[in-house]
């Protein structure tokens, strides 16, 4: 009888300890999840933040607005908690969200007029770069985004279509027209390669 009581007592103590640990973890799970998400957001920002910032800048031509878009994109990442299959998928997801946020901002006329990057280039007496930047700013935003994703990020037209939520034929048309307009504006030769 004493042996039985001792066995049951130790088992009960172990069970209660496990149950209490379970209770604590059940209550603290949301906080642990939040910490994990914060780490993930930091990693995503380190990996893709520059790409997001540059795409937003190509749309909005305002560093301040682009930084707002970067933060808004990260907020979406934290709240949506997407399940993403690969690094490439993650990057495309983030760029897609950023592009949509940029388009919304343009639609609602919440774009600042100051172009800090242009002022910076002029301040450094890089008129050649400022001229190019100003020429790109004259393109419709759809063409700007397509040119940025094709020539700077190196995406193919099919991938650009998925990121921008557009038809591939439209993207090809945007690239062609964007190049033609830039050439007309700048009247210089660039080392363009044919659109692939």
């Amino acid at each position, binding site marked *: 009888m004493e042996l039985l009581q001792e066995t049951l007592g130790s*088992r009960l103590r172990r*069970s209660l300890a496990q149950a209490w640990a379970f209770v604590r973890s059940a209550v603290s799970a949301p906080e642990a999840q939040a910490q994990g998400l914060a780490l993930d*957001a930091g990693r995503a920002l*380190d990996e893709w933040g520059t790409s997001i910032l540059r795409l937003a800048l190509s749309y909005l031509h305002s560093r301040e607005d682009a930084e707002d878009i970067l933060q808004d994109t990260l907020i979406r990442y934290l709240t949506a908690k997407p399940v993403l299959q690969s690094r490439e998928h993650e990057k495309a997801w983030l760029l897609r*969200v950023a592009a949509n946020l940029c388009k919304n901002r343009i639609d609602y006329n919440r774009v600042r007029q100051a172009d800090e990057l242009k002022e910076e280039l002029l301040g450094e007496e890089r008129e050649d770069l400022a001229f190019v930047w100003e020429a790109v700013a004259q393109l419709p935003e*759809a063409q700007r985004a397509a040119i940025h994703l094709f020539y700077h990020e190196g995406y193919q037209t099919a991938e650009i279509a998925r990121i921008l*939520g557009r038809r591939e034929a439209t993207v090809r048309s945007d690239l062609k027209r964007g190049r033609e307009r830039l050439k007309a504006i700048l009247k210089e030769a660039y080392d363009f390669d044919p659109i692939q």
Partner: protein
Amino acid sequence: MTLTRYNEIMDRVKVTPELRERVLTGAAQAAEAAAGAQKRRGAWRPWVLAVACLALVLLGSLTLPRLGRSPETAAPTEVSEVQGGWDAVEYDTIRALTEAAGFPVEEVPALRDAAGKSYLLIGGELAEITYTVSGNRYDYRVSPGSGDNSGDYNDYPTERTVELEGVSVTFKGEGGACRLALWEANGFACSLACDNGVPQQDLEALVRSVIRP
């Protein structure tokens, strides 16, 4: 494959440590605020679950040889859904697309027998049927609500609005090539885009076949 000066400009643009800190802090605060209401509503749930499990453990420990749950297999987590706004899922049939979309999607009758067809649901709420006919590609889109859902942001020099079967339809294109038709019907936004462009009357006929099947 570079636009060299443009890339030189972009290479100056980076996320600085200061910007990183500011963005992470701001994003975390905003996300926490957004989750705050949900947290207040559901704050009692983990405690109720924990108390119920504790009661079960106490009851079971008196009779079962092995008891308890490992802390590592803690509270169930929500199943995350793939989100992202523009993820596209392809379906084999119009019926499957309709079921997934949750709203009726019909074929373009005049294109129903096209050799190449695909059925996509984009972002969970935009249904797209693509037809390939004689080297020309048509994208027919339907989504709840209103507005332009074509995803075509080109500025077309030619734009005309006509009444077809009592529905106002806007046609866009350039020269003699009409590339896009936009209309709304029964609470849905609709668009029919054509890659290579066709005479407006041809696109009108296709739209008419949709409006009045």
